[in-house]
C-alpha cells in the first residue's frame, strides 16, 4: 500500500491506459471504434496504433514529469491525426482530459481515503499542461495544412508566371 499518488497511478497504469485508450477510440463511430481497437497491425491500423502507443507514452511521461520537448513528439503522433479528421478543435483534443475523469472514477475512493487529493491536483496540473502543449501542436498542424495549400497554389501557377516574366525566384522567395 502506498501513500504516494504517483506510485498509486503507476500500480494501476495498465488499467488506466487501457480505459483511456478505449474511451478515446469511442469518440469515433461504433464500427470504427471496434476496428481501431481490434486490429493490431500498425500499418493496417495507423490510427489505433498511434493512439494506444501515444497514450501509454504520455501517461508514463506525466508520471515521471517529462519536459515539453520530450512530450511534444508523443503528442504529435496523435494530434496530427485528430487535426485532419473533421473534429471541432475542442473535440480533437478533449481526449487528453479523459484521464482525469478515469482516475477519479476508478481510484477516487482510494485517493480520498488516503488523503491524496492534494497530490492528485499536482498530477492533474500535468494533464492540463500537456493539453496546452497539444494545443500548440494542433495549431501548428493546421498551420502546416494551410501553408501546404498556399504553396500548392503558388506551384501550380509559378511556371506560367515565370514564363510571362511576371514573377522571379526573388519575388517568390520574398
Amino acid at each position, binding site marked *: 500500500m502506498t501513500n504516494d499518488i504517483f506510485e498509486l497511478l503507476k500500480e494501476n497504469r495498465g488499467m488506466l491506459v487501457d480505459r483511456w485508450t478505449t474511451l478515446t477510440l*469511442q*469518440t*469515433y*463511430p*461504433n*464500427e*470504427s*471504434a471496434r*476496428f*481501431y481497437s481490434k*486490429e493490431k*497491425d*500498425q*500499418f*493496417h*491500423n*495507423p*490510427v489505433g496504433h498511434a493512439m494506444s502507443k501515444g497514450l501509454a507514452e504520455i501517461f508514463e511521461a506525466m508520471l515521471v514529469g517529462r519536459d515539453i520537448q520530450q512530450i511534444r513528439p508523443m503528442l504529435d503522433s496523435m494530434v*496530427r*491525426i485528430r487535426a*485532419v*479528421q*473533421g473534429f471541432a478543435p*475542442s*473535440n480533437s483534443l*478533449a*481526449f487528453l*482530459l*479523459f484521464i482525469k475523469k478515469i482516475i477519479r472514477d476508478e481510484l477516487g475512493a482510494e485517493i480520498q481515503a488516503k488523503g491524496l487529493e492534494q497530490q492528485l491536483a499536482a498530477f492533474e496540473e500535468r494533464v492540463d499542461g500537456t493539453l496546452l502543449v497539444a494545443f500548440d501542436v494542433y495549431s501548428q*498542424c493546421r498551420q*502546416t*495544412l494551410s501553408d*501546404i*495549400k498556399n504553396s*500548392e*497554389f503558388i*506551384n*501550380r501557377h509559378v*511556371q*506560367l508566371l515565370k*514564363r510571362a516574366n511576371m514573377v522571379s525566384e526573388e519575388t517568390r522567395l520574398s
Partner: protein
Amino acid sequence: MSQAPKPEELLRVSHIPPKKDWMDPRVDLVPGTWGYPGKASSLETLGLPNPREWNPTDEDWKLPPNWKEIIHEGLKERLEKYRSLKIFLDICVRCGACADKCHFFIGSGDPKNMPVLRAELLRSIYRQDFTMAGKILGTFAGGRELTEDVIKEWFYYFHQCTECRRCSLYCPYGIDTAEVTIIVRELLNLIGVNIDWILGAAANCYRTGNHLGLEPHTFKGNIEYLVDDIEEYVGVRLNPTFNRKGAEVLFIAPSGDVFADPGIFTYMGYLMLFEHIGLDYTISTYASEGGNFGLFTSQETMKRLNSKMYAEAKRLGVKWILGGECGHMWRVLHQYMDTMNGPADFLEVPKSPITGTVFDNAKSTKMVHIVEFMADLIHHGKLKLNPSRNDYLRTTWHDSCNVSRGMGMFEEPRYVLKSVCNNFFEMPENTIREQTFCCGGGTGLNAGEFEYLRMMGGMPRAFAVKHVQEKHGVNRLVNVCALDRAILPPLMDYWAPEVSVSGLTELVANALVMEGEHDRLTDLRGEDIPGMEGDE
C-alpha cells in the same frame, strides 16, 4: 437566450458520437472532404446533361424534374449491359472482409467508407427497385427508397473512393467495388451531379487534348523550356519533334509531366532517354494527354477521350505507341481500351528498335509502358549508367494502384530503380505490391478543396513511408504516376517531412551518361549533387 455551453460544460458533453443507422442517407458535408460542382460550361463542352450553376451546400440541387426516372432507367440499362454489375450487386454476403481495407475508412473512421457499406448505398436502391424481395419487403430486405438525400449521399461517398481496388483484393467473391463507384458516378452524371476537378479536366481534354487546356503552341513551348533546362544542367541540346509524320513511335505522357513540378523532371528524363538510345519518336500536340478523366465520368466520355490516341497514331503513321509514367491512363489502356476503340490493327505489334524485343503483351493495344521499355533496355545493357549520381538519395517505391494492382507491374519498376540507384528500401510487405495503399487523391480527388480527405486517405501510405524514413533514412519516394507526383508531395510535407517525391525516369536520367555531356554537378532539378561539387 444563448444556448451555447459554458466553457466548463465542454468537458461534460459526451464525446461519443450518437449511434446512427446507415440506412439514414443524410450527410454532413464536412469542409475539406467534398468537391466543388462541375461548371455548366464544362458539361456543355462534353454534351453532358443538366448543365447549370448549383452548390452542394444548397438545399436545392436543381435536379431535372424526372431525375428519379432517369436514375432508375440508367441503372436498369447498366444492369443489362454489364453482367458484372448485376453479379456484384447480387452476391455480396456482407462478410466484411473488405470493410477495413479502404484507406479512407482507415484514415477517417467513417463507417460509410467501408467498401461493403459504400456499395450498400447503391445495393439498397437496387434491392428496393429491382429484386422481388425488396419490392415486397422493402427495408426488411435491406432496401431503401431513392430520395434526393440518397443522391446527396452518393455524391459525397462515391467521391470518397479512389477506385484503387484494394478492397476487391480481399473479397472472396472478387467483387470489384471500384466498378460500383464507376457506375454510380456515371449515374450521377446522368442528372448533372459531378465535380469540377473531373469535369473541367475532361472538357479541356476534349477541346484541346490535355487536362490543363494547353493549346499546341503552349504545349510545345513548355517542352522546349524543359529542353533549355536539360542543356543547362546536362550540357546537351536536344531537338524533340512534334507531330512528325512517319516517326516510328508516338510518345504520349500525362500532361502533368509537361507543366507541373515534380513531373517536369520526369519529362526531362523521357527526352534524355530517347536521345540516349536514338529512338525515332515524335510527340503529338493533339494527343497531348495520357490521362483520361472520362474514366471518372462515363464510359462514353472515356471512349471519346481515349480515341484521340489512336486517331493521332493513324494520322502520323507511326508503328506503335509508347506511353509515359501514368496511373489511370494504364488502367484505361489495360482494361478498357481494346474493347472500346481497339484492336488497333493499323499499327504494328510493338518491337523495341534497340533490343529487338517484341512486346507480345501489347500485341492488341499496340501501346507499351515506358517502364517495361526501360527494363528491357537495361536488361540488354543498352543504357550507359552511373548510379552513384543518385547516391544522395535513399529511395523507396510506391506501387501506384493502377499499374500495380490494376495491371500487375511489380518487378519491372523495382528492377529499373535498383539499376539506377544504389540505395533502395522496401516499405512493409502489407503496404506494397498487390496490397499497396493509395495516395488518397486518385480519380479526380486532387482538387484543392479535398484537402482533409486526402490527408486522411493518404494516411496509411504516409505511415509506411514514415516507417522507412525513421528506419532507413529514406528521403525519396519514387513512383510512376502523374497524380502520385502531384498528391504525394503535400502528403509527405504533412506526415513525413523531408521525404521528396519523383518519377522513375527522372532518376534514370540522373544516372544516364549522355554523349557530349559536361560535368554533371547538378541533378535534373538544378540542385547540386552532394559529393559532385568538388569534382569540377
